[in-house]
């Protein structure tokens, strides 16, 4: 189970352990954490929800895309759902590759793809209200009706 949605706090070392490989020289790990301040506004806590069965499939798809693009890569991703406090871990991505450059590139690819097309949503709670984040703060139009692979250098 390298791709998971978790209702419990994520064990980071557990995600890393899934990609350990005798022919890996590098493991890149990306950990998304709950930031207190966004655009000057103080977040109290977040609620993440997922279309869980589809989210797991889409994480698996990201894993396959990475293995096609970066030879020898191993990938594991766990995304948390439920209520998260400041500094809590929302997502852990671990990618092992033979050489280091690919581990950075593939890890970055994974987080960008998650933000593009994995059905997970967050609701930010502030002192004066709450809102589902998505098209409001991070405008993501889908002119084709489907998410496309974007240029990650943008």
């Amino acid at each position: 189970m390298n791709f998971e949605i978790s209702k419990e706090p994520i064990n980071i070392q557990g995600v890393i352990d899934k990609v350990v490989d005798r022919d890996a020289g590098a493991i890149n790990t990306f950990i998304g954490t709950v930031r207190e301040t966004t655009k000057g506004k103080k977040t109290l806590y977040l609620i993440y929800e997922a279309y869980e069965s589809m989210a797991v499939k889409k994480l698996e798809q990201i894993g396959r895309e990475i293995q096609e693009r970066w030879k020898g890569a191993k990938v594991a991703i766990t995304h948390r759902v439920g209520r998260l406090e400041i500094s809590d871990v929302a997502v852990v991505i671990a990618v092992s590759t033979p050489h280091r450059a690919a581990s950075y590139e593939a890890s970055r690819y994974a987080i960008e793809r998650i933000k593009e097309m994995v059905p997970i949503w967050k609701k930010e709670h502030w002192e004066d209200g709450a809102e589902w984040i998505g098209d409001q703060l991070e405008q993501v139009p889908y002119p084709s009706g489907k998410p496309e692979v974007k240029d990650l250098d943008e």
Partner: protein
Amino acid sequence: MNKVLFFAHLRDAVGEDFIKMDAAGKTVAQLKELLKEQYDLPRFDTVMTAINEEFCSDDDVIQEGDEIAFIPPVSGG
């Protein structure tokens, strides 16, 4: 019958995680029009659609038993 799922602000607008309805034979675009008449669905045009957990296009035709999900712009990560 078809199960139609709503998430995030759409779920708040509909007031349900999902509804059951007969959408077989309709295109996704037709289903969207129908739902817009029944519910006040903010920003419904920026929403993606999945049939059986795969993204689909507005032209795709819904089959008997398909699970339809409306996917607002995602914000995981």
